[in-house]
């Protein structure tokens, strides 16, 4: 136990000392089904930055979400993590980059358990050995948002659609920020997303409840019913509305589902109404870097993004 002595925050260039030429991109189930534009935009930006992307159809779901609802025991998730990360290590020798805080948090947490409990690592390796996999634990798990921040100067130079005057607020997501050790920014008052907005020409907005959980974290509507989730979200959106937030970004398709799809439902319970569109920060960067609007996938959103695009004058190009 070294809680008080260990650094919880790591400088970006210490966390990722060398910009990779090639990364393994971890598919997110929620991302590819709920907001397919997210993955597409993440790839668009990575390509612009000259980073080669490896994906593999043999990768499975990270299995973390239902685990954290106590939907099944931990053994399968430990083995699934060993299988996915072991496969990436063996086949490509690359680090894994996720674009979902869930995939990031669960892979990181389960990897931590595998790396610190030899008995679980052996259990997992014995099991996945039947298909020829082996998990060593010699690669890292990162989130692409960390690359966005590290390569911010390059991104800034490539902006072709500046987001001038747009009031954007961030939802960082607990499963990134609440990692105890080794995240990019201070868990209580992170600002690296706001720095990204500025680089894209937008105006960052801080609101009181910006750090508040999306409430989707575990089993929205399952393990915790609507009467827990909705008043919680209403508090968050009231506070965002007060500060005149015009757009909110996430780094997690799960958070995006909660914050975007829940807004129309909140009105029915007498909260709001709210109309703050919520998109992935990768989509935001792709927008500023000139990705064709129809390829960004805003039509997957429940709270329409069009008013913001109109305001910026982007709908006619």
């Amino acid at each position: 136990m070294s809680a008080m002595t260990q650094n919880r925050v790591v400088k970006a260039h210490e966390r990722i000392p060398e910009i990779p030429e090639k990364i393994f991109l971890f598919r997110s189930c929620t991302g590819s089904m709920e907001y397919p534009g997210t993955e597409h935009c993440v790839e668009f930006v990575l390509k612009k930055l000259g980073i080669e992307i490896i994906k593999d159809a043999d990768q499975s779901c990270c299995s973390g979400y239902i685990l954290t609802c106590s939907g099944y025991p931990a053994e399968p998730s430990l083995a699934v993590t060993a299988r996915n990360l072991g496969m990436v290590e063996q086949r490509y020798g690359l680090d894994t980059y996720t674009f979902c805080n869930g995939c990031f948090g669960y892979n990181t947490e389960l990897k931590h358990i595998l790396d610190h409990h030899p008995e679980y690592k052996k259990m997992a390796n014995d099991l996945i050995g039947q298909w020829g996999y082996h998990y060593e634990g010699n690669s890292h798990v990162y989130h692409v948002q960390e690359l966005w921040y590290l390569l911010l100067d390059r991104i800034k130079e490539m902006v072709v659609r500046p987001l001038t005057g747009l009031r954007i607020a961030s939802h960082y997501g607990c499963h990134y920020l609440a990692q105890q050790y080794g995240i990019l920014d201070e868990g209580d008052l992170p600002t690296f997303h706001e720095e990204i907005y500025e680089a894209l020409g937008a105006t960052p907005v801080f609101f009181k409840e910006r750090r508040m959980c999306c409430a989707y974290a575990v089993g929205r509507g399952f393990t915790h019913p609507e009467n827990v989730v909705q008043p919680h979200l209403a508090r968050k959106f009231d506070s965002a509305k007060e500060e005149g937030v015009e757009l909110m970004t996430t780094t997690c398709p799960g958070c995006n589902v909660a914050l975007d799809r829940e807004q129309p439902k909140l009105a029915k319970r007498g909260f709001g109404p709210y109309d703050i569109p919520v998109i992935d920060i990768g989509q935001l960067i792709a927008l500023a870097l000139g990705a064709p609007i129809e390829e960004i996938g805003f039509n997957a959103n429940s709270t329409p993004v069009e008013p913001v695009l109109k305001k910026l004058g982007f709908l006619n190009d």
Partner: protein
Amino acid sequence: MPRENMTEWDNELYQKVDRYNLVPNLEQCLQCGKCTGNCPVAAMHPSYNPRQIVHDILAGDSDRILQSEEIWRCMWCANCYRVCPVDIHYPLLMMQLRYLALENGYGLKYVTPINKYAYRAFTGGLTFIPGQRGVDKIKGLREGIGVEPWPKVSEKAIAEYGAIFEQTGAVDWMKALDEVQAKGEEKPVKLSFMGGRLIDERYDTE
């Protein structure tokens, strides 16, 4: 509210909860309450109190905690863990506490509906695959932005993913819960920490 019966307390509750040995430092809890002060659920529902739950696990108040409705309210946001001065991994404690509650017949209604999606993941390799209409909508959206209509997940990935769940006994564990429920043997949960508290009714009518 009935008083707890001292004779039914369980001295080994902590060991039973932490079955995977993932929270070995629980006894270092200072009862400082930082977890509760940072918890968004506690902010709305005073009856949900992570500090008290840690206390009750250590004290062995098995009766109260396993039938508690509150333990199903945690959102797993881990803000308690982030601020805990002794690094107690409360979310992993909560995950395991829920296992014990489930195995004692409590709270199944909060978990078995999600497992419909787990079973679907064994044949589709993705978690949260919706019904046919939803699938069609997703395909339309994906084609609209110029990517393949369905994410590429190999047969190999799906087969191995499912086999891992079979071979670790996870599927049997899930089916056992389904059976308890089908037989009507699920036990009711109740608010356990409410004595003498005032709460906003809007938040607590189910």
